[in-house]
């Protein structure tokens, strides 16, 4: 959907304000996750989660300098060639080697979060040598076709017309970094969902306490209490999964798996949390008269961006069912439990 966007927030001015608040590069991982949750809670109009939990760590891991300001992240197939083809090379066909790693890049990156509010984009794609490459694109280097997700948040297509990326902004990276980009993106979405889930709880509790029908607040009805408790529970579940993943970020052995768990649980819980929040809000929550939509429409988008729950669940399932694990041995049904307790 590359139509003119109808975002609720004029992105640029707010994004500038938010940029002032970006934490330093050496902030602890749990702080970064907490900030991403806050961004979800306040529906911050900037790619804060993308910057803190994905773009910055990937740049650092690749050994590239981290620019100031908000960053976004994009992946996908592009036409990538060496900018300075090594004509003297006898390795492969002409163009298969360069005198350096400067690249010429063409193609389209689809639905990039908050591209119009970002200073630069971290791009992961396949390099001309057949392995993964990470490079940094500056905002002036792409053409933008605006788009939006269900909540009206910018999801812009970036059109690259033979952009030359200097070698200083290009790094060959291991396949593990591509996986890291995936689970980091999943964790970033999960943190945003946890924040928005909290907003759903707050708005619903406030609404049922103040809305009076049949002479008493909605919150005094047993039927309402039952649902409200389940809403609180499901939101707590998402938060717990995200906090566990945040705590595991510093542990190389468990960071990836716990990020999968958080991404899977957050995406899977969106349906129940938004269902109850809307049901208890009644008709007003279904309209622009209530701020509830600012949380719920985002959650409906976020659960599918960077992989829906099915994709995350399948990774987890495949992992615990894989007999070739680190524990090996006879009947390894315990592997599931061992993974759950190893965080």
């Amino acid at each position, binding site marked *: 959907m590359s139509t003119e966007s109808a975002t609720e927030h004029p992105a640029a001015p707010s994004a500038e304000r938010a940029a002032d608040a970006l934490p330093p590069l050496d902030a602890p991982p749990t702080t970064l996750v907490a900030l991403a949750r806050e961004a979800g809670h306040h529906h911050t109009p900037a790619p804060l989660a993308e910057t803190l939990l994905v773009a910055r760590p990937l740049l650092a891991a690749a050994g590239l300098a981290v620019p100031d300001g908000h960053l976004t992240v994009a992946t996908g197939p592009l036409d990538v060639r060496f900018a300075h083809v090594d004509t003297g090379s006898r390795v492969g066909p002409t163009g298969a080697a360069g005198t350096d790693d400067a690249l010429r890049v063409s193609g389209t990156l689809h639905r990039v979060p908050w591209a119009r509010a970002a200073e630069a984009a971290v791009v992961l794609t396949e390099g001309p040598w057949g392995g993964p490459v990470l490079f940094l694109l500056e905002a002036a280097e792409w053409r933008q076709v605006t788009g939006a997700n269900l909540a009206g948040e910018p999801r812009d297509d970036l059109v690259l017309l033979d952009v030359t990326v200097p070698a200083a902004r290009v790094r060959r990276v291991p396949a593990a970094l591509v996986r890291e980009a995936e689970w980091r993106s999943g964790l970033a979405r999960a943190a945003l969902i946890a924040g928005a889930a909290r907003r759903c709880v707050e708005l619903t509790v406030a609404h049922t306490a103040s809305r009076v029908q049949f002479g008493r607040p909605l919150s005094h009805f047993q039927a309402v209490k039952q649902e409200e408790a389940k809403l*609180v529970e499901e939101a707590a579940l998402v938060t717990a999964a995200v906090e566990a993943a945040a705590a595991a970020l510093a542990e190389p052995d468990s960071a990836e798996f716990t990020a999968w768990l958080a991404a899977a649980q957050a995406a899977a819980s969106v349906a129940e949390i938004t269902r109850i929040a809307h049901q208890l809000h009644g008709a007003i929550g279904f309209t622009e008269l209530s701020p509830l939509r600012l949380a719920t429409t985002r959650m409906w988008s976020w659960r599918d961006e960077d992989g829906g729950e099915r994709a995350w*669940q*399948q990774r987890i*399932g495949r992992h*615990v069912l894989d007999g070739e694990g680190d524990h090996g041995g006879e009947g390894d*049904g315990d592997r599931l439990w061992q993974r759950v307790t190893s965080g």
Partner: protein
Amino acid sequence: MTLSALDPGAVQLPRETVQLRQEVRDFLAGERAAGTILGRPDSWLTGWDPAFTRRLARRGWVGMTLPRKYGGGGRSNLERYVVIEELLAAGAPVSAHWVADRQAGPTILRHGTEAQRSHFLPRIAAGACFFSIGMSERDSGSDLASVRTRAERTDDGWRLTGTKMWTGGAHVNDHAIVLARTDESEDRHAGLSQFIVNLRDPHVRVEPIRLLSGEHTFNYCHLEGVELTDDALLGRPGDGWQQVTGELALERSGPERFLSTLPLLTALVEQMQRTGGGSPEQQSRVGRLTARLSAIRQLSLGVAAALAAGRPADVQAALVKDLGTRFEGELVNEVREILPTTARFDATRGSYPELLATAILHAPGYTLRGGTNEILRGIITRGLELSR
């Protein structure tokens, strides 16, 4: 407004628990090799094996948190958590000492006299003294304060009359802690007291109540004028309600509130591993259960850490119990759909169809025991009102 339930904070288990967990796993591997029956769903309710309990006790894993001077292990609540979650995940037969270890021991430590402590606690920790819960009655389930069992003053103690119901293990255990009304005149919460009753007393008559599966764990426990001396009173007269409420926090948030059916999932995973790892659909359903299990465990650990730090956690405990016990039932339905099999209670013990049958037949209990979930949800929403 603060919604503390939504900020449980990640719990990092103390480093010493890594080794402890491995010790328990090694012990269980030895037990499995020696032929002890493991891998059963709901083993904390029906896995009665006093010899297994004594082997655990020799390792120091019964009454772990009781002070050393009473024969306990002097270990932390989180260390105990690690041990019991390993035992439950393995479906080990822990029901003999379950109530003694989880609540009778800590309650006697907290409210008992020195004589009661030095008599009961070393026996509990040795795996030689088993307890039942004497709370519920026919007309007092969720509404516990309505109990009618009476304790009347006698010259040298009390006379206990009434009938307790759902008294798990009363036919095999040694004692029960009985909640009884000691004062009719006061308001319904104030006139209650707790007593330690010898289940082998001639005036205690135990009558089986079979589960819908035909299994015998529950009983009526008829107290037909049981004569008690003063040293049977636990805590102060009239404090029974408060004491029981404290017990319930211990009872509601532990790993037995989400792990009762895990052995069935383990059996499913083994079955799928033997047949090539399953389809993508089956894999993702296993993944969904894994993610939910893991998140519920994090919340449960949060409650354990709060209780260990002396912070109140009633609301969080209710939340974990509702989430966890609903998960226990949901797991059974999912497993049925992931690998459809006809459940058979008469199939070979320990086979997949028999484990499935056990889990299905026990499923109605998960969301009832330890406080009906509908009532617990009321505790959660009341917590929201208080935090407003």
